[in-house]
């Protein structure tokens, strides 16, 4: 990557990229939620969403067995019908080699969080070593966290240099840069951090909202800020960056709203799992459940779907 000169202040960066009005963008995304999807268009959206899921388990209690069943679920989300596999499974680095046994050689990619996820509070050397380890174990994709401390204290150069170092450590693997939007707090910060990240990653790499480990996660609002940043960056440079909202998207209806945002903001070229993903776990079953409802015409009980947690 060519060295990018980091802006020296947020104000200068905003002079280049512009700011975001919170109320205005929330009004915009509210319009996505009034779109009404019927019949074929609903089924298309639900199947698309399934194909975009990074089926995730990021628990201290994860075991090879848990990862194995996650992989089975990713490959075959439901035992009936022709529901497509998910885009990837997303696990901790220690679980990559176990996932590899189940999804290696299939269309389902292995994504691994790394860089001292979720806080990122480890020496850079340690974080890079973790990336190398995950890649060596077979991770196709690395989900890193940015140094929020560096961003918030105005050390943009340091934040970008660290991302660039992870890019290098990724080698052939795709990188997803987690901004951890809840810690950036404002839409202006999210837009600024998106641009700083996009300027040091490669075409097809992702920017991602959240770790899923803080109080607030992906919302239509911060998703939209990042989609618009991707759009502006693409139109200015020709570099297409991909997007991954993560955490908090639990229902099919929510996922469709996010996809409508993609359709109306970035257009058809981003409506595929190379350019858009959902970081989620419970979402997959609700997507499958709604697809089954469309197929059979009957509302489904949750226990018909494997790995469902709702037993009541």
């Amino acid at each position, binding site marked *: 990557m060519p060295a990018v000169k980091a802006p020296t202040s947020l104000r200068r960066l905003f002079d280049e990229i512009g700011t975001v009005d919170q*109320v205005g963008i929330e009004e915009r995304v509210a319009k996505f939620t009034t779109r009404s999807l019927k019949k074929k268009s609903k089924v298309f959206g639900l199947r698309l969403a399934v194909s975009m899921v990074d089926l995730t388990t990021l628990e201290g209690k994860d075991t090879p067995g848990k990862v194995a069943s996650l992989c089975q679920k990713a490959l075959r989300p439901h035992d009936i019908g022709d529901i497509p596999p998910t885009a990837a499974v997303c696990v901790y680095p220690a679980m990559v080699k176990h996932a590899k046994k189940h999804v290696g050689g299939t269309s389902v990619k292995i994504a691994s969080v790394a860089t001292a996820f979720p806080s990122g509070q480890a020496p850079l050397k340690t974080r890079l070593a973790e990336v190398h380890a995950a890649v060596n174990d077979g991770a196709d994709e690395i989900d890193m966290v940015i140094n929020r401390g560096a961003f918030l204290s105005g050390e943009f150069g340091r934040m970008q240099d660290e991302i660039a170092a992870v890019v290098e450590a990724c080698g052939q693997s795709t990188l997803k840069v987690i901004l951890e939007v809840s810690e950036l707090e404002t839409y202006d910060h999210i837009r600024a951090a998106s641009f700083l990240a996009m300027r040091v990653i490669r075409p097809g790499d992702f920017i991602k909202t959240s770790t899923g480990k803080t109080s607030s996660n992906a919302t239509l609002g911060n998703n939209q800020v990042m989609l618009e940043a991707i759009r502006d960056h693409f139109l200015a440079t020709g570099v297409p960056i991909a997007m991954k909202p993560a955490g908090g998207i639990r229902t099919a209806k929510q996922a469709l709203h996010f996809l409508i945002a993609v359709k109306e903001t970035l257009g058809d070229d981003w409506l595929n799992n190379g350019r858009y993903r959902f970081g989620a776990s419970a979402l997959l079953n609700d997507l499958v459940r709604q697809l089954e409802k469309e197929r059979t015409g009957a509302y489904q009980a949750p226990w018909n779907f494997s790995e469902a947690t709702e037993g009541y």
Partner: protein
Amino acid sequence: MSHRLLITKTPKCYVGGAFIRSESGRVMALHDASDGFFANIPQCTRKDLRNAVEAAARAGPGWAKRSAFNRGQILYRLAEMMEARAAELAEAVALGGASQAQAAEREVAASIERVVHYAGWTDKYEAILGSVNPVASAHFNFTVTEPMGIIGVIAPDDSPLLALISLILPAITSGNCVVALASNTQPYPSILLGEMLATCDLPGGVVNLLTGLRSEMVPTFATHEHIRALSGAVNAADRKTLKMGAAESVKRVRLLKAEEPIDWFDDKMQGVEEIRALIEFKTTWHPVGA
């Protein structure tokens, strides 16, 4: 005993901060109570009105931008100027003959009180007329008042000082400018009032006082599009003419009936409702976000 020949005053109209004769050169002879010749008063024309409107237009933006505190000080200064020449004003009011000297003094006193009343309103009416509006969305929303611009004032014949000043004051309190036509039958108090307006720190052009005939001036008041509102007390025929003309540029009209008795001394003839009649409300919305 040698008689000194007195210097008589040539009454002039106060327009644009200067004292003018009518551009037409016409005058109307004014007589005192005993029907003796008193002075020649300018008989202004529609061109004088046009010039007065131009003067008001030049003065308007600056006057509206003055702080409310400053406008209050200037109005209070006007009261000081009037008080100092109250006796002279009373003589001018009594000149029409209709008023007894005592009544004239009462009118002058009430006029001065009225000026003081409005001097106190300049920095208060906004708090009563404006508002912060609790809209249901994530916006801060507030309504403030703004002056309308140039107000055409047409005074009735009676109460030549009190009526005139009662019509002018609510307009200028909020930052409007005024082009006024004084009483037809008793115009002389307006000449004196002009001299006081000229010495009270009021910027020239904020108040412009014309003398002349309503019959000649009303049609131009009605149709001059730069005049944004009409305020006065006129007869039914003039009201109709003014309203018909006002329609052409959607002018605001607030006209009292000159054919019915008007008690200008009444406290209801002053106050925030009078100010409200000559302001616009402007509502601004802004999102509340971070």
